[in-house]
């Protein structure tokens, strides 16, 4: 199969790759944000602990 022809999607490239590209991006960004959130939450917990019970 010719790759250029494959990516051209018979003239529908923008629509097809726009759909797949944005969806993939959304899922990747979601995973990054959720993992980041976990990291931040754990950091905050450690800071709270270091600040002691009076904080």
């Amino acid at each position: 199969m010719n790759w250029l022809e494959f990516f051209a999607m018979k003239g529908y490239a923008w629509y097809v790759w726009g759909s797949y590209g944005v969806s993939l991006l959304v899922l990747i960004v979601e995973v990054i944000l959720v993992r980041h959130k976990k990291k931040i939450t754990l950091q905050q917990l450690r800071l709270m602990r270091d600040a002691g019970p009076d904080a």
Partner: protein
Amino acid sequence: MAINWFKYAAPSSFYGLAGRLIPWFAWPAAILFCVGLYIGFFVAPTDAVQSEAYRIIFIHVPASILSMMIYLIMAGYAALGLIFNTRLSSMMASALAPTGALFAFISLWTGALWGKPMWGAWWVWDARLTSELILLFLYLGFISLQASIEDPRRADRAGALLAIVGSVNVPIIYFSVQWWNTLHQGSSVKLSGTSMHIAMQQAMFTMLAAMWLYVIAVALLRVRSIILERERNTQWVAELAEVRQ
């Protein structure tokens, strides 16, 4: 077998269980995404009417199905939390909302990119499209309502009411193509059989399975942060290895 199922209704036990379960959903999701994309692009034939543009179906349909399913599951968890006062159910509802909103967005986005070449319009105020847009707003409303209330238990109850009332919208989305004369087409896959090519169906169902697994993995990941935040003043959180280090 005597398994104490209620053990895992406690946030402290579920935190660890969720952590152990995540890879069992995340890796199969990644593999099935690859398989689904391979079948969708290299095995499924070109459509006679819609040419290559139809390949958007492999994300559009599974994402749309999940945007509705996640809403019902979210409302179910929220209702459980409201009725039985179980904290973990409310946390699960909060963990599902952002993912549901993203799937509703993906459904609308891919729908617009499919509508333009096929109908000649990015958007029409058709019953199916409008009710799906309302679904997105319901998710966003749930998230912002919960964010605006300081006390987590009050936020849970307010969110639960919104989620339960809003679930009326889900059957409206589903049946809209039958109840109204819509530009959006009806389902291609029915219980009585289908008009789709077998490889097209395989790609669609593989993508659906992949997205299901993805949703479970990401919701478990998110609920772990929610549990930590809400239980931050408890002894068990202070004793966690990742907090003590």
